[in-house]
């Protein structure tokens, strides 16, 4: 069968996109989640709402505004052009930016919940044991929030793999550049190539199931229990 030749770039791009998005979001969402979990600032509720927006917005709306903003007349578009980066829509980089925004709540919320569940006490204890704030964050908060971090990574990864609307609005369907799995499946169905659509869809189902199974195993594996 020849679908493997046709679809393998789509699989590769999807994985690359999911990996990039997960890595960037882990770096971005962790400090943001920490701030949300610990701040007393009045801006907290507004920021929380903003982070959660992608959960309720139709992906097409999000994609549309991202397209406008990143376009030649948009603020972001003008900035990227001034910096000599060109325009982001219809490029892989554009997809990464869109995915990061789209998957933000899937990263922030589990990590924030883990930090909040941790409470202030372990950090106070660490402070009485001479650990500076940064020291406390890396030796206490992060390791104890590990289940939350893991959940965030898996959710972000899986969510990015399944992304469709935003990609279609912003990335189009450029073979080898922006065509991802979900779009490829859509194309196959449009072309009535059900067997190919089946193969990719079933593959995604197996992938998702395995990921969740793995997550559960990883969370079970730890030696310690909360006391």
């Amino acid at each position: 069968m020849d679908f493997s030749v046709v679809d393998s770039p789509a699989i590769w791009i999807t994985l690359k996109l999911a990996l990039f998005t997960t890595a960037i979001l882990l770096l971005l969402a962790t400090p943001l989640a920490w701030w949300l979990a610990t701040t007393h600032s009045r801006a907290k509720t507004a920021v929380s709402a903003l982070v959660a927006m992608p959960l309720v917005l139709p992906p097409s709306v999000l994609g549309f505004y991202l397209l406008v903003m990143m376009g030649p007349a948009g603020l972001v578009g003008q900035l990227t052009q001034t910096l000599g980066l060109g325009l982001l829509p219809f490029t892989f980089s554009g997809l990464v930016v869109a995915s990061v925004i789209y998957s933000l709540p899937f990263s922030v919320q589990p990590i924030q919940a883990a930090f909040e569940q941790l409470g202030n006490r372990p950090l106070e204890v660490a402070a009485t044991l001479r650990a500076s704030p940064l020291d406390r964050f890396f030796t206490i908060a992060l390791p104890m929030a590990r289940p939350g971090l893991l959940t965030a990574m898996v959710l972000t990864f899986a969510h990015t793999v399944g992304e469709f609307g935003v990609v279609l609005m912003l990335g189009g369907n450029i073979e080898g550049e922006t065509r991802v799995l979900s779009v490829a499946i859509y194309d196959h169905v449009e072309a009535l190539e059900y067997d190919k659509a089946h193969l990719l869809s079933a593959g995604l189902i197996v992938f998702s199931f395995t990921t969740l199974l793995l997550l559960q195993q990883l969370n079970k594996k730890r030696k310690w229990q909360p006391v």
Partner: protein
Amino acid sequence: MSGIEFEFQLPREDFKLQVSGTLPDRGITALFGASGSGKTTLLRCIAGLERAPGGKLVVNGEVWQQGPTFLATHQRPIGYVFQEASLFAHLGVQRNLEYGWKRIPRPHRNIEFEEVIRLLGLEHLLGRFPHQLSGGQRQRVAIARALLTSPALLLMDEPLSALDLDSKQEILPYLERLHDESRVPILYVSHSPDEVVRLADHLVLMEHGKIVAQGEINQLLTRSDLSLSRLDEASAVLKCRVAAHDPDYHVSYVAIDNSGLKQKLLVPFKDLPTDHPVRVRILARDVSLALQMQSQTSISNILPARVVEVFPSNTPFQVIVKLDIGGQFILSKITKRSAALLHIEKDKLVYAQVKSVALMR
């Protein structure tokens, strides 16, 4: 300048902390009071976990808080034992203990790792995780972990209150050993008269965010103007030293400290070397009075004493008599009737017949 000099004002939801004073830099000082009296808040202010604006804290001449100076908690040489289990759940016992230890530069360490393990009996627990320990064991690890930071001041916030009776009994001897063997001054928050009587050298009485009284334990327990002397369990704590043993009768003699009269008490045998400090508790209701020395009696401990004052008790038919037995005080709870018949009054010389003496350690 030694001692812990402090001044804090901090409004809380149900009271306003408003305290100042100087605490001794040795022994165990108990902050004693009902819940909501502000003792934990005071402790947290001293640890820097709570920031009282405009407060002042000078420990042994070093400024921890004053004006713009405010040392963050991790910059203060303290150890802190929290009320509930506070071990890091994701670290084993060994790594919990090392957490603070590793953060102390070698030249600043004044206690050996193995020494602390021995002091708190943790040899067999090092390989476990916190969830595999009993409540009492966890608290022992937490105490050891705090000690391993070589603190200049050890703060303990009701370390026994979350434990069941058995675990309390398990830990108290370790705390007593800590008191005897370590030179770190301890601030010990408690609302349990029993713990205070067993452990404290110095007592700070708190009520509604204020310090009502403070002083040496024997003085404070026997003060007529404080509620402690009116409790059912009103008692006096005497500092003594082991004087001699009598193996035939399985008893020991302890000499009462700073007693000009060289008074001795007979106590159940305790295997301690001569001159070892011990503390003895005498309940007010176990002390009766006589005007003459009784020789034909089964009571072994009869001490000549001078009446300091007579004041009402918590019952209408009894009074409390405060007695000076040579530098330290004891209380005697007798009926009003007896007090009248014997003409008990200030400065009268009497014999205190002590029915029962509890050797605390």
